[in-house]
């Protein structure tokens, strides 16, 4: 289980958030909301181990969470704004590589399934540089779904998705919860919050 206690982050004199605590059990979703600049992305970056909080503790399965720990990387599928892609690899090859590195049993079938799920079957051979922003977002979401995971950490995953895409995302996250995956996401879309959230943390 992912546990956050007493988390505080400051940029100089400016306190972004203070004393934030949350628990994320399996199969539940915590949705972080708030206006622009409230600190949602910063909180998720701290939880994912990419930014260092000024105070507080983040633990995974009772141990302090270290982002570089292979066990943490195996458990947490994270989508923040710093995700990069190999410029020479096609959409399908990215998903194929991830599935294999994470030891998925039948990678070919899983990749085909995820490509269809995120609506990128027709773009399977495209290189990342040619993707639209919406397609890129779908590929990054696919990178979270093509691999085993216990927790999803998603920063505004609805961004750049079209209306049907947002509806699909809500259904997918509900399905993830039903499969026992914990979901921590920030978002601005009230319908997504309503569909997915078990707990809402407003910053």
């Amino acid at each position, binding site marked *: 289980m992912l546990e956050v206690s007493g988390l505080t982050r400051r940029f100089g004199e400016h306190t972004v958030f203070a004393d934030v605590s949350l628990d994320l059990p399996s199969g539940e979703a915590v949705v972080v909301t708030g206006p622009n600049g409230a600190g949602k992305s910063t909180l998720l970056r701290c939880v*994912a181990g*990419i930014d260092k909080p000024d105070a507080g503790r983040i633990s995974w399965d009772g141990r302090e969470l270290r*982002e*570089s*720990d*292979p066990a943490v*990387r*195996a458990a947490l*599928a*994270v989508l*923040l704004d*710093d*995700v*990069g*892609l*190999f*410029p*020479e*690899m*096609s*959409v*399908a*090859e990215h998903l*194929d*590589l*991830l599935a*294999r*590195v*994470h*030891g*998925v049993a039948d*990678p*070919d079938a899983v*990749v085909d399934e995820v490509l269809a799920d995120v609506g990128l079957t027709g773009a*399977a*051979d*495209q*290189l*990342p*540089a*040619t993707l639209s922003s919406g397609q890129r977002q779908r590929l990054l979401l696919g*990178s979270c779904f093509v*691999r085993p995971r216990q927790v999803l950490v998603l920063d505004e995953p609805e961004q750049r998705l079209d209306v049907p895409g947002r509806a699909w995302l809500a259904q997918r996250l509900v399905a993830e919860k039903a499969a026992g995956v914990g979901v921590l996401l920030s978002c601005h879309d009230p319908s997504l919050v309503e569909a997915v959230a078990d707990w809402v943390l407003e910053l």
Partner: protein
Amino acid sequence: MTAAPATGVIPPPRVVRAYRRSVRREHGRGVLRTALGATWDVVVGAAVLGALGAQAGRRLVHGVPSHGTAVSAQTASWLLAAAAVALAGAALRGLVAAGPVSAQPAAASWILTGPVDRAGVLAPRFWLSAAGASAVGAAVGALLPVPTSPTLAVVLTAAVAGAAVAAAAFASAAVAQQPPGRSFGFGGPRWVGTGLLVVAAVGGLAVAVAGLAGHPLPAVPAGPVLAVVAVAAVVVAAVGGWRARAGLGGLDRGTLASGGTLVLGVATSVTWMDTSLLRGIADERRWRDRATVHTRRLRGTGPGTLLRADLRRLGRQPDRVVGYAALAVVPYVVAAVADPIWVAVAQVLAGALAVGRLTAGLRTVSDQPGLRRMLRVDDRSLHVLHTALPAAGAVLWMAVTAPALVAAGDPALAGTPAAGDPALGAAVAAAVGALAAAVRAATRPPLNYGSVVVPDVGFGATPVGLISQVLRGADVALLLAGLILAGAGYPVRLAVATVALAWSLRTPSAD
């Protein structure tokens, strides 16, 4: 709300340019002062590098090799001719890749979106860029023959030929930039550039081998050759320039803005002596042009898959492999013209560049923490896995270039008592050194502009972090070259290279 109706008067380009000049004057430095400042930076940099290059060339050519045979003037002049052809090919390819006619992103958004005569707006920049290319070509042309102590007439003819070739390359690339149907095809000049590079590499290798074997070479008829080249280039420049100018109005905004971004990247890279920004922009353009690939699934599972994926990605960049292989010519060329100790130096320096061509995967995982986070492997293992391919490349490169050292009678490889270096040990030290330099460069962290600054020593206050990051990789190669020149044995060089490699891989991107 209603849009304001057009008055029917569209300002001519010169009015738009005059307005922009007046705004610049009002809000910042004047155009002339800005241009002079930029020109000064370029001139100082070019003068320093040119003088160093010419001096090194003269020393190489006129230094008496320790194996007793001074390089012949004929060999040196043929090698310089090959270098000139290579430079022309590289310039042509670079200009075609960049798209020489460009507009700054702001101008593309705020001026070229209007009904102002586009050709008129772009024309001054077009002619100025053509003149700049000619000036650079003239300078390079004048400097190239310097190592052979040429007459003033040859220097002047070479300068004219260099200017004409540069203008022709610029004009050809500008025509190629135009929409299909109005150009002679994007691929035309690019393939000409590639052909020139191949001719230069093959010719340079042939001259080097002939020189090493002691075969006499005829003298280069410099005067007539340069005159013919100059006349032909002037014709191409005139025809191409006329066609390019006529087609300026047909250039689309996307092409112009994209070129402007690249120019900005070039300027930033030159100013900070850091090519990462330029490389990123060029890669983006290259892969956008490629657009799709034939997807091939990998085999197996687990971390080893990363190694197979790295190899496959390299296969999609044949130019990197060609560059890696072409650099193997360098030690042979140096063996033909210089003292043997310089061959060992060239092997390490060119080896570092060659192996660096194979580090794209390592650079990608090092640059992108988000990508590393997606993979079920710790950072160190990720970097070690992506070092396997460059390591194999380093071993192969050293094996291929080792005969150059033997042919030159180099003590470092031949195991003479002077250096006491067994051949295999020296080769291993060179391979590890080249690998260490390439890996250190590929794992360079993002530029840190916020570090402690050193005082102004002529280039302004400069952050220490910037200096160390720009030199990262080159520092190892230069240190090893210095050790060779200082007569250090291979165990010392191997130890230094091993420490540098281990240091680079310990927690990459963290320092």
